[in-house]
């Protein structure tokens, strides 16, 4: 009699089996804990004007880079308040604070938040779709992520406004998408960014940076002030070099004894066989070899 009454519940119990199995093996599938304070170990981002080495720029990308002048930093839209993650995490050494956002009812991770002194980025983990093409584009873009292979947080960012790849004018278009991987190797956090830009790049541009776990660190809050238009530069002006008129473009190549062409980037320059090719290329006489003797 009793069994007859619980007949339907037995069917329900069968549905619990997969859940039971998942719970039993939970420790094997637990994701990596990314939360906490991370201290940067970001090196080599002191690029000069004309140093586009390693960037697979296409012809249009190079033209845009050549047109850049440092005065463009004074434009309100280029203030540091707007640094996107693919620029800010790589070129602006800053402490990094990562925290997760949980759904109060299910305790599932809704999002990860990456906070530095220069930017705040949200990575949505709840499966929400990316916004439609006509939706508002922002400097940080829109990011969604998922765990892969139990140890890699993979997230994709798109819906950017146009931004910069470097602080010296290499550009990234609003059509770009950035696929980022976050790996925790013990107390080291490595973020790899694969930047794909159909407008200005011919191949994915890959950047890697690492941080070290620093539980006693306190990441600074974000402070920035956007100058009103017309205060630093005349309103409406956009300083730039016209093609062929950038007189600083070759300074970097001359200082380091490089063929000018090699310093201007391009996918070909990123492969080992390019070393052999460089031997046959012209280079201007060097002016110095003591650029970094200042500490010596």
């Amino acid at each position: 009699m009793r069994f007859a009454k619980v007949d339907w519940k037995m069917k329900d119990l069968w549905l619990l089996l997969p859940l039971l199995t998942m719970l039993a093996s939970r420790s094997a599938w637990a994701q990596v804990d990314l939360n906490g304070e991370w201290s940067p170990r970001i090196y080599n981002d002191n690029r000069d004007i004309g140093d586009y080495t390693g960037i697979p720029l296409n012809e249009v990308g190079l033209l845009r880079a050549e047109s850049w002048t440092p005065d463009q930093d004074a434009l309100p839209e280029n203030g540091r308040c707007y640094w996107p993650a693919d620029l800010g995490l790589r070129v602006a050494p800053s402490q990094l604070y990562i925290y997760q956002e949980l759904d109060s009812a299910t305790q599932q991770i809704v999002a990860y938040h990456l906070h530095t002194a220069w930017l705040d980025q949200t990575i949505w983990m709840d499966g929400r779709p990316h916004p439609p093409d006509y939706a508002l584009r922002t400097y940080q873009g829109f990011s969604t992520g998922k765990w892969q292979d139990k140890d890699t947080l993979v997230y994709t960012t798109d819906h950017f406004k146009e931004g910069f790849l470097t602080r010296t004018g290499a550009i990234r278009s609003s059509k770009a998408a950035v696929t980022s991987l976050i790996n925790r190797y013990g107390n080291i956090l490595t973020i790899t960014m694969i930047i794909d830009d159909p407008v200005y790049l011919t191949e994915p541009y890959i950047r890697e940076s690492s941080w070290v776990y620093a539980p006693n660190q306190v990441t600074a809050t974000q402070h920035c002030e956007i100058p009103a238009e017309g205060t630093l530069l005349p309103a409406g002006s956009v300083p730039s070099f016209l093609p062929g008129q950038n007189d600083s473009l070759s300074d970097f190549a001359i200082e380091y004894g490089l063929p000018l062409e090699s310093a201007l980037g391009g996918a070909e320059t990123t492969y080992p066989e390019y070393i052999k090719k460089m031997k046959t290329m012209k280079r201007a006489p060097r002016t110095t070899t003591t650029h970094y003797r200042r500490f010596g």
Partner: protein
Amino acid sequence: MEMQSGSVTLRTGRMFLFVAGLSLVVAANLSGQIRNNASPTGTPRATALKDFTGYWVSVVTEDWRYRMVVPDKGDYVDVPLNAEGRRTANAWEPVNDQTAGNQCKSYGAAAIMYVPGRLHIYWQDDNTLRIDTDSGTQTRLLHFGGSAPENLAPEWQGYSVARWGEENEPIVQRVGGGGPVGQGGPEYENQLPVGNTGANRQDREEDYKPVPRNYLKVTTTLMRPGYLRKNGIPYSGNARLEEYFNRFTYAGQTWMFVTTVVNDPQYLIEPYIMHSHFKKIPDGSGWDPTPCRVDEPR
């Protein structure tokens, strides 16, 4: 009728309990196997969590001017050298290495993944993953299991022990949480690393059963003194190298990412972290073996 239904349900209930129990056993076994970093019966080759074998080419999108050309003497910006490290780097003369037969100093284990070139990775045997490089014609052997033998003579590639990663692997940290040291300047002279070692680490290892990860961790010791870059930035024979290998497929293309941590208190203020990435290629075309050279980037 009701009794019959109840009897059927009883059998169903017993079957449920049996299957549930079986599930728990299977799941626990699975969890245990992964935790132990390998199947108890399989070899490292058979139970590899990721496949790194094949041909790879380095794609130099960062640190280009330190890798694709020989940097100038004294150009060690961004490397956290201490005073002894700077003195040694400033004394670098390539002709001395040539004369002394030390042409391979910049092709040692701490630098070789950073040198532009092609790799061929394959299993030499069930326990040894082998990396051949065309730049400098070097061979690295990644030994799964065990530890570096005692009394082994130092070599350019040292002795590498490989295993799959574990959660919360402790590493040396330095005091404070500010920005990077990175400039090699005298103002950082007193910023010494502190070791998160000893009892603290031991306690944690005892209390905590790590959950394995799918990356490959390689620890290398017993290296001959070498150069981190072609321009004589030194690492010592006491350096300890930790490398983390991972792979990722993006837009149909497979990539291998290597994060390298050089621990060398003799020449470095703090562990130096380097990165390199490689694109998988179908075969050995483009393989260009070169000898060790003191005046060439590869």
